[in-house]
């Protein structure tokens, strides 16, 4: 598995911890939502960086109260035709203003990446062999958008919008995350 973030391969500093494995005391760990829900705050080391992995059937809005403990939320495509992760990402990023990394895993395809980014996804677990050239070509092939609320910093839009909107906030947030 390779990780792509901001159109580049990056080192994945995160470790996915199986439900029956002991919890590390430090580092960046991703645990399942089920395990996360069963833990008390005191079960977790204060210096661990925490990510949670949810399934496409989970209600991500229930995580809102835990945002300050979460640096990453990992969504999943059980099949590439199952598009629930698009709405989950949208809810997290746009409605609930989650500021951490939203990561995609599972059976997604290259042609969905751009849409996912517009919904607020920031990193991708890539299993297939893919070159960065392919990634750029395919994921940036339709850089026009009719949906003002889903724009990225470089998306070409027709419609101008009022100066301060939630959309601009989103854009700023994405720009910030890209710079980070």
């Amino acid at each position, binding site marked *: 598995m390779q990780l792509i973030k901001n159109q580049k391969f990056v080192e994945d500093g995160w470790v996915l911890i199986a439900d029956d494995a002991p919890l590390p005391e430090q580092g960046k760990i991703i645990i399942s939502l089920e395990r996360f829900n069963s833990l008390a705050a005191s079960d977790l080391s204060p210096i661990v960086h925490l990510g949670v992995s949810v399934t496409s059937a989970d209600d991500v809005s229930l995580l809102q109260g835990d945002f300050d403990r979460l640096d990453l939320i990992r969504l999943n495509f059980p099949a590439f035709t199952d598009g629930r992760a698009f709405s989950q990402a949208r809810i997290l990023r746009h409605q609930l203003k989650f500021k951490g990394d939203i990561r995609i895993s599972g059976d997604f395809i290259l042609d969905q990446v751009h849409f996912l980014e517009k919904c607020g996804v920031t990193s991708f677990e890539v299993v297939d062999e893919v070159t960065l050239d392919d990634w750029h070509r395919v994921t940036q092939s339709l850089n*026009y958008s009719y949906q003002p*609320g889903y724009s990225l910093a470089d998306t070409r839009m027709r419609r*101008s919008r009022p100066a301060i909107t939630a959309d601009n906030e989103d854009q700023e947030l994405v720009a910030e995350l890209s710079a980070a």
Partner: protein
Amino acid sequence: MYRYDEFDAAFVRSRVAQFRDQVERRVKGELTEEKFRPLRLMNGLYLQLHAYMLRVAVPYGTMNSRQLRQLAFIADKYDKGYGHFTTRQNIQFNWPKLSDVPDILDHLADVEMHAIQTSGNCIRNVTADHWAGVVDGEVEDPRPVSELLRQWSSAHPEFTFLPRKFKIAVAGAEKDRAAIAFHDIGIKIRRNEQGDPGYEILVGGGMGRTPIVGVTVREWLPKGEILGYIEAIMRVYNLHGRRDNKYKARIKILVLELGKEEFTRQVEEEYARMGETSVQVDPAEIERIENYFVPPHYEQLNDADPVLAAAENDNAGFAPWVAQNVAKHREPGYGIVNVSLKPTGGIPGDATSDQMRVVADLAENFSFDELRVTHEQNLVLPHVKKSDLFEVWKSLVAAGLATANLGLVSDIICCPGLDYCSLATARSIPVAQDISNHFSELERQHEIGELKIKISGCINACGHHHAGHIGILGLEKRGEEFYQVTLGGSGDENAQVGEIIGPGFSRTEVIGAVDTIVDTYVSLRNENETFLEAYRRVGPKPFKEAVYATH
């Protein structure tokens, strides 16, 4: 009508380039057929029984002459010289080669057309009343909001991998010619008590194996909120629609399983959560689109036209055609010309490239360069001066397009069925042809009056048989085709799912059954009572008795 601005044009070109790349990756083997499938479907490309089929969008059924001529060119160059107009106001080409499709899409883009989202599990081409903007009694023209929805739904980042396909239809008048109650979302433009125009929103209608009439989730929505509200519906559906069973994946099943109250509550809750800024459509954008649909510059005319009256007297075939196929226009001295694509014994909805060019010329010369495709698989010249009707009729007669059967028993809606479609369980076209031949006497058809027969070649119901006054569904049992007949269906403002009258019929029996049903109606009707009215009065009993007594 709407014209692309630079942005629309660039978007469509960019979509074509993207698809060209996808086809290349498929040809090189970088994409498996399984992964290519949803991508090609999102560009209207099906793999059918014999070949690929390309479905081209005609947004809300409106076209100009240049566009229709381009379709004729494509039919000649890449197909077998004809195209098939569908119940979703689109046109299908049955024989394109995969490697030609990107070029075809470029030809379409040259005339501001595309095949985007004409299939696949995404928001499909939006349909609307085919007499939009010209018919009496309209609250507002349904096309501006249809165009707004077309743009908004194009390559929507969140709603392109839905549980199942998603169809939206818009009606602008009390009289519903867009069958909105049989769509995933139906939008009806209506006024509230203060007299302001807004939208009534219906959800969960559909045909297929679970035919159901949509329910109203909002009685009246302010115009500016339409995109936000639809977004809320789509999000609830995308997250909660069933993905475990293809036949239960449409939104109608979600509405059915949750119940109207709970579904509406979830939508309203989601809508409230979205907040003001993501909800309102920029009024300047609505105005920009509406400006494309202002009425053309009509001449000030008297409604009665002496040229027309004289021609009606002198030409035997002309007067019945005017009476049947020309509808009342809201402007005095003009008529709405309906061009029948249902010649006796023909294939419903098919048009040759020559016929397309004839209609394109007529649209350009006599109808402010505008034409429409109807969900009943006919064409419309929406604004023809009454004094020009005779000229238009003569050209249509010469092209085999002047059958005076609009809304009559031979004006049959029919899906492609087993002759083309890989999902079909039986043939549908030959049944339509047999019925059309059987009732070839126009006089008899006029006597019978309005009667809508709709035929599907399988349970998917693309031929809208559930909404047929007489519906025919082709099925298969032990290798034999047989046909189930329903009565009393209707796709209008009093939408109703037809009732099955009893055991099915063989290919040869079904014509006799239809004939008996028609005779029964004629013998029991009151004066001026249409088939549907009579059926609603007497119910299925007399029809069943007559049909199963003789068969």
